[in-house]
């Protein structure tokens, strides 16, 4: 097992990193940007890239949409890193829906829509953020494969995926293109799951322990406790996770229950404003 990235992998990571930093800096044209952080591996890499792009001082708030169903370890990780990295951490929760008893038992798509999409929409409306960084990747799932680096949402946070605006080279649209809605900005859209882990290894980025095998199982993708399953795996280090990804035939979100709720579940969720 190799503990180092190959020269070709290094060259690829360098190019991806440079593009992501370029995107993050381009987004500063927008008034009031903010970054979503779920403490998962992808948004943690995005956060790391933002620290690099802005020389250790991230010039916008970092937002956690807290469904209250997150795995406790994630919350502990969040608070520890927010302090260490001096983040302007903001937490948003759809407390009305929670009070009314919303949970995945009410329906997976309904739960995601209320506790994630609605919580995000309320938060954007309340704070008037015009640009939101999210750490989606195009290889995760089919509808994310259709995304643009800069992707406008209307005032209802809806995604017009049938009629996306043109984007050439890396000259991205301005805030006028999102009108009275907001712009979703996807700095790591072109990274693959393997890229993420190779970069975590290269940069020694701290990640949740949940990603590493305990008793023959590990989380490959992390979300809410009720809807996130583990995969059978003996990978208990970054190196062994990387080796596993090189050979696996199983998709990354196979353990995410909301994806399986409907054939086009993610497309439907995302059209309505989901990440």
């Amino acid at each position, binding site marked *: 097992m190799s503990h180092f990235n190959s020269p*070709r992998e290094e*060259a*690829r990571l*360098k*190019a991806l*990193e*440079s*593009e992501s*930093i*370029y995107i993050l*800096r*381009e987004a*500063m*044209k927008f008034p009031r940007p903010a970054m979503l952080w779920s403490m998962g591996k992808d948004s943690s890499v995005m956060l790391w890239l933002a*620290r*690099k*792009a*802005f*020389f*250790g*001082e991230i*010039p916008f708030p970092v937002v956690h949409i807290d469904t209250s169903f997150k795995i406790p370890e994630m919350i502990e990780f969040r608070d520890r890193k927010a302090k260490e990295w001096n983040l302007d951490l903001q937490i948003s929760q759809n407390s009305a829906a929670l009070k009314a008893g919303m949970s995945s038992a009410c329906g997976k798509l309904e739960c995601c829509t209320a506790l994630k999409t609605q919580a995000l929409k309320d938060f954007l409306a309340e704070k008037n953020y015009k640009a939101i960084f999210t750490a989606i990747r*195009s*290889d995760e*799932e*089919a*509808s994310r*494969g*259709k995304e*643009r680096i800069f992707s406008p949402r209307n005032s209802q946070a809806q995604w017009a*995926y*049938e009629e*996306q*605006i*043109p*984007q*050439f*080279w890396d*000259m991205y*649209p*301005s*805030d*006028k*293109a*999102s009108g009275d809605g907001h712009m979703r900005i996807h700095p790591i859209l*072109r990274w*693959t799951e393997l890229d993420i882990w190779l970069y975590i290894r290269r*940069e020694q980025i701290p990640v949740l322990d949940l990603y590493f095998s305990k008793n023959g199982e590990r989380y490959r993708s992390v979300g809410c406790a009720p809807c996130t399953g583990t995969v059978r795996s003996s990978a208990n280090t970054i190196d062994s996770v990387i080796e596993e990804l090189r050979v696996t*035939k*199983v*998709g990354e979100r*196979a353990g995410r229950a909301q994806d399986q709720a409907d*054939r*086009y579940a993610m*497309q439907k969720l995302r059209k309505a404003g989901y990440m």
Partner: protein
Amino acid sequence: MSLRIAICGHVDHGKSTLIGRLLNDCGQVKEDRARKVQSFCENAGRRFEYAFLLDGLAEEQEKGITIDVTEVSWNFQGREFTIIDTPGHREFLKNMVGGASRADAGVLLFDVGSEIQDQFKRHAAMLGLLGISRVIVVLNKMDLVDWSEDVFFAREREILEFFASASMPRPVILPAAAWMGANLIHQAAEMPWYRGPTLAQLCADIPPPKTLGSMALRIPLQGSYVRGGKEIFVGRVEAGSLKVGDPLVFLPSGKKSVVASLEIFGEPGRRSAEAGESIGFTLGEPLALKRGELGCGEAAPALLARQLRADIFWLAKEKLEKGATYQLRCGTKEVGATVSSVTELFDSSGCLARVNLQLSEPIGIDHFASCESTGRFILSKEGQALGGGRILAPEAGAILWMTGLSGAGKSTLAEALEKRLQSQGLRTKILDGDVLRTGLCRGLGFSDADRSENVRRTAEVAKLFAESGMVTIVALISPFAADRDNARLIAGKEKFLEIFVDCPLSQCEKRDPKGLYKKVRKGEISHFTGIHSRYDAPGAPDLHLRTDKLSIDAAVQEILGLFSPDEGLEC
């Protein structure tokens, strides 16, 4: 980095199917995604649809079309590729161009049994316009023409003729049947007459994109951040390299400084950065520089342009019209751009054209042929891109007519300008008044009539040079407005730009590079312009340069800005 290949072509010619099959045959499809497609196809009672591995939107699967671009990774023989699946429908052309704009090479699919349609030609032309010179044409669906050698070669000939007639580089052409995998990874047994490489092999043989490290430095500024009391400028090195100690000049401001330090978080002490890197840097002396300035190596700066000649693609529903104003972005700089003329349409639907643009203020640019990333631009409205284009080099053949008092700086400017134009690969000729009077115009004196004849002869010679494709720089006092107007008439179709090299008489006399003013004051020369003889300052010159206020470099930049994009005459 992986080689990026855009898959283009008309709708239903098999693009998504080809990609799905390619991944499948290389064992690079995730099982759960394949299972999803399989169960869907079984339920619908149809054969396994490779295209659905890419077309992930519900609308795409239901209608069996590609609406928007998908990118997937593909590995072959240890080489990494990014395959960009683009839609074929006319109405999704904007998505196709967006996807192809990120590609290094293109694969154009064509249903071998159909006629060559506009959409195929349009996609081919788009690839050409985007600067993608490596194109592989796949003549697909060979199974539907019984693997016929004759059909293949007839179609191949037509396609080669089309590419040649459009002055596009000759593509490689191969026969295939994508849904069966024939000639994708494996040689098709059904076509023993084809002995060329498979598609995968052709892709593997594409040379890597050229490196940009040896070019002159270009770094468009994205902005700046103050950290630890220092102002750090940020941007991506688009060409060349940047090192501590390098002298830089920024355009359009013309400000100069030296790189004091490189600022890359987590890598203290870095001394140099290469093309492609997103970096920060500090400067030796504090300069107020805004987003949009183009940082250049001082030895080989970009051009300062106020007008552009460009080939563009236009994707908006509204027509591109003369007189309309859009927002133009080149590098990180945004300015207003008015369409001063549309000189050629390459496409029946108006989506490809050659235009001239007048900018609201000068910006730093390169010609696309010398630096792609600073030689292209987008046009937008309301923050949305409507089209884009590449900046063309000036058309050779022009007369730059410099008029002004003796000592105003005409000859000095002409020489400096010639050097810059020649460095851009242009052929130039200087016609200097003093030199002409020793030959062509020997025998002419300084009477009004002789002066007119002097200007007339010079104009006639300038025209001959311009006609032969040379940039002809005339440095001649040419004091009378009527004579200069006549020179413009003589130039006829050739481009004629009047440049007023303006400097107050007292300053010219102080400079007195040839000692003429001294002789005038001693009474040794009569009929001297500005003293005994009148000088008509141009009323509306193409450019007015105050050489008492401008440096030579700055004046040359202004001329290049006026001239390099070539137009300004026919608007």
